[in-house]
């Protein structure tokens, strides 16, 4: 009786267990939701007639996007180049705002730019985007990364190949394969060790998807039961596709490569559909042991395993003998390791997204994040920083210490951040100086002082101000006696020159006349978020800012007085490609455009006549730029911030432990800044003159109105229309070199000819 009762109880427990497993299997698998980390994309390259991209640039770009030379009519992902003409079979890609189907296009380019764009039917294409490059994923630490395939994405050869190698009776069994178990048992007994596993694909899927890694009989039984329940509820097709998405294929640092979709990208940098037989065979072979057969670490093992798979495929008549021979003879075809990992930029993206998304959603919800990153600008900034730091270290006096640095490049009109370099070790995560190094900005603050002065209407570029010693009693009773950099005193100088040569005494006197609150308020309008201390030393830049904050402030100066909110993320789509959120261009008037224009023209003098004049030698001949050097006390921080017609950028150089560098802004940061922009083929800075101002010639030394014929140091400044300027005796506007009725444009060109050589 007790025996029968005990049996009934056991049976009941067994049934309950099966019901429970059944429930787990249906519930979890039904609503199966792969943990898909957010994918992050750089900005796609926009092609149009006139776009600054030579034929070689274009080919380099196509290679970077893993397009291969060949017959473009054979399929997407291939291009053919003849001279400057390209036929391209563009892949199917999703942009933030549309899905593009595969498309044939013809592109012609000369040595400078794109000259023609046509679709396959010969129609002119006004504009065409290349694929947005993937720059990374937001995956959890020790997390799974994958690209999910839909049934249509699975190539037939993968379908039959994986069954052939891993589970020949997949289409017949019901989740557990008795034949397979007996065969494996027999093989293992004969060999005296485990040489074959009897697990079906279904069991492998159950193991990966539902169970832990523990090895026990109980787990094996659970696995088998769950496999049976899974097969009872779901179709073979669903199980196979799930398996192809779940399977583990390799490890990239802390990132686990799951599924054939990501496997294809990780090993070959191509979509699965573009893989050839040998590449597919390599991936199929990897399933057995991704680390043992790791093709990057154990190429011989991987090749042997691949060729075994190829042989089996041939024997099963899935490929013919010729294809098998070709596949077995081909190289592994791995894409080069490393590549474009941009941790500092991804850091900015992550911070931006954290305002709107939970960490868990970023790591698992399969979002697509479209950023403003321009890979070319990023590469230019990385190279400029690493090369210059190396050079400066070699020339430096500090033995054994390594200079650090940071660079940010943005597009001033939209506020798009196009490049972020957070330190000299560009490829690794670490202290992100571009976002987190908060340092005194030195003379980078001066444009705000001069802008505040211009805004009062009491000052213009020609106004003579006093560069003379000054002593101030501070609120704490101490006396502050600022000095010029080399302790000179310049006396009476025009404002344009005081800024160009970064005179401290003149700036302090000017700033005190305008008032510290007014200067602080100007800084705030330009984009500084934390209000600075109203201490007179603010005028010489004791205020501390991160490179990112500096870029925000200078964006307003580069953008005619409009502050464009910095933006790293443009749009976020959900896993189905539906738009979740877009971050629009946001602009706000930060300062009167006419005052900013006058200031910007003075900032051009910095790079032509002042402390930033070394920039010209590093930039393409004739490129007009505006900017400002900055050096904090005892040369602990070396800064340069400025802009061209296309970009605003800031560079910082210093030591992490804040020791003295011996580098001024012009020696340390300026070369980094200029080299970055030189590589970007940046257009000249040529702002549109407002109607309220006009160009006038003044003597750079004395500020008196003159002409180039009259004074060798004549410079053009912009002043409010009809400003009365004291004239140099015997010179003045009537004897100007250009005709008095000359337009502003003529004078600017005349003046540029004069200075840009």
């Amino acid at each position, binding site marked *: 009786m007790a025996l029968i009762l005990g049996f009934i109880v056991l049976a009941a427990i067994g049934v309950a267990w099966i019901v429970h497993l059944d429930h787990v299997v249906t519930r979890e698998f039904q609503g199966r939701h792969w943990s898909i980390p957010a994918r992050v994309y750089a900005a796609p390259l926009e092609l149009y007639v006139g776009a600054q991209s030579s034929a070689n640039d274009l080919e380099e770009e196509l290679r970077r996007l893993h397009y291969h030379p060949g017959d473009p009519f054979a399929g997407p992902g291939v291009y053919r180049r003849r001279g400057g003409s390209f036929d391209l079979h563009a892949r199917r890609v999703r942009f933030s705002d549309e899905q593009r189907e595969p498309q044939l296009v013809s592109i012609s380019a000369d040595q400078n730019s794109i000259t023609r764009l046509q679709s396959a039917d010969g129609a002119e294409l006004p504009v065409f985007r290349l694929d947005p490059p993937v720059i990374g994923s937001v995956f959890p630490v020790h997390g799974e990364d994958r690209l999910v395939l839909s049934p249509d994405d699975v190539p037939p050869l993968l379908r039959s190949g994986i069954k052939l190698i891993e589970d020949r009776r997949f289409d017949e069994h019901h989740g557990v394969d008795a034949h397979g178990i007996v065969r494996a048992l027999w093989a293992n007994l004969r060999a005296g060790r485990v040489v074959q596993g009897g697990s079906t694909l279904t069991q492998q899927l159950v193991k990966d998807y539902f169970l832990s890694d523990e090895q026990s009989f109980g787990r094996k039984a659970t696995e088998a039961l769950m496999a049976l329940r899974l097969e009872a509820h779901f179709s073979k097709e669903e199980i196979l596709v799930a398996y192809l998405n779940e399977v583990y294929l390799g490890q990239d640092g802390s990132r686990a490569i799951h599924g054939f979709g990501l496997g294809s990208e990780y090993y070959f940098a191509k979509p699965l559909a573009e893989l050839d037989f040998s590449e597919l065979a390599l991936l199929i072979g990897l399933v057995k042991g991704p680390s043992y057969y790791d093709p990057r670490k154990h190429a011989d093992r991987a090749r042997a395993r691949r060729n075994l798979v190829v042989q089996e495929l041939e024997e099963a008549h899935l490929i013919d003998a010729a294809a098998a021979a070709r596949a077995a003879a081909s190289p592994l075809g791995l894409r080069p390791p490393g590549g474009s990992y941009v941790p500092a930029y991804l850091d900015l993206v992550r911070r931006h997204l954290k305002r709107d998304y939970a960490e868990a959603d970023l790591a698992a919800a399969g979002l697509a994040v479209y950023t403003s990153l321009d890979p070319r600008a990023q590469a230019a900034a990385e190279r400029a920083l690493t090369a210059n730091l190396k050079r400066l270290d070699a020339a430096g006096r500090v033995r054994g210490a390594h200079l650090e640095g940071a660079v940010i490049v943005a597009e001033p009109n939209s506020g798009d951040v196009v490049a972020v370099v957070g330190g000299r070790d560009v490829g690794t995560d670490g202290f992100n100086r571009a976002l987190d190094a908060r340092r005194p900005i030195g003379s980078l603050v001066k444009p705000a002082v001069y802008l505040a002065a211009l805004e009062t209407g009491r000052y213009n570029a020609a106004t003579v101000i006093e560069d003379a010693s000054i002593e101030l009693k501070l609120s704490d009773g101490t006396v502050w006696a600022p000095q010029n950099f080399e302790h000179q005193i310049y006396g009476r100088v025009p404002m344009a020159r005081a800024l160009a040569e970064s005179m401290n005494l003149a700036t302090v006197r000017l700033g005190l006349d305008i008032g510290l609150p007014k200067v602080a308020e100007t800084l705030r309008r330009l984009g500084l978020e934390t209000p600075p201390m109203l201490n007179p030393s603010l005028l010489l830049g004791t205020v501390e800012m991160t490179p990112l904050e500096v870029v925000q402030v200078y964006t307003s100066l580069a953008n005619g007085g409009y502050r464009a909110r910095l933006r790293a993320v443009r749009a976020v789509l959900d896993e189905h490609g539906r738009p979740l959120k877009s971050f629009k*261009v946001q602009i*706000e*008037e930060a300062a009167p455009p006419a005052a900013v224009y006058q200031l910007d023209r003075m900032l051009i003098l910095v790079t032509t006549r002042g402390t930033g004049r070394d920039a010209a030698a590093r930039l393409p001949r004739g490129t007009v730029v505006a900017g400002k050097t900055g050096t904090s006390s005892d040369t602990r921080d070396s800064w340069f911030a400025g802009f061209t017609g296309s970009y605003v950028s800031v560079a910082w150089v210093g030591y992490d432990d804040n020791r003295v560098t011996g580098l001024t802004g012009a020696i340390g940061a300026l070369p980094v800044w200029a080299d970055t922009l030189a590589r970007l083929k940046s257009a000249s800075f040529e702002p549109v*003159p407002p109607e309220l101002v006009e160009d006038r010639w003044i003597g750079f030394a004395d500020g008196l109105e003159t002409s180039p014929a009259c004074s060798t140091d004549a410079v053009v400044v912009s002043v409010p229309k009809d400003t009365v300027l004291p004239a140099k005796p015997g010179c003045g506007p009537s004897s100007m070199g250009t005709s008095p009725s000359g337009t502003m444009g003529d004078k600017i060109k005349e003046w540029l*000819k004069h200075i840009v050589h």
Partner: protein
Amino acid sequence: MAQTHRSLRAPSLRTLAAALAAAVLLSGCPVPSQRPQPPSTSIPGAQPSEPQPPGPLSPIPPAPPRASPAPRENHLSPATRSLVTQSRTLASRGDLDGASSTLDRALRIEPNNPLLWIELGRLRLAESDARQAEACGRKALSLASGDRATQAQAGRLLSDALRAQRRNQEAIEIERQPFMR
């Protein structure tokens, strides 16, 4: 030395000449007109009707005869023009986000073209974001200096944006500017 100087200057002069030639050629090109403009003689104090999404491209009027050449004239390149057309199509279908990101593309190609900022401002009005529309209008106005036709378009955008914020007095001041006549 002087010789070096001249040879270095030459390219910039050639560029200038080319730019002038281009400007002369392009001055005959029609400026793509914007969506139908609201009457500029709107009654002070009257609120504009519900912001409308930008309509389809209106027919391009013939270039008006000009007594003297304007110092500047803004126009759209084929690339930005096609993106503007695409943006308007999307907006007319109610896809304002798509319209906006398409205009973003155009602005990346020609960031200093006031016509694009006017277009963006019109879109912001359609999105009921009058403050951004105002900022776009002001920026367009500052980029359009020397180009009466574009200034007038920017001015109309600006006054619409101000009226949408019930800042009618400021709107009237804009409407009285010489470039609005």
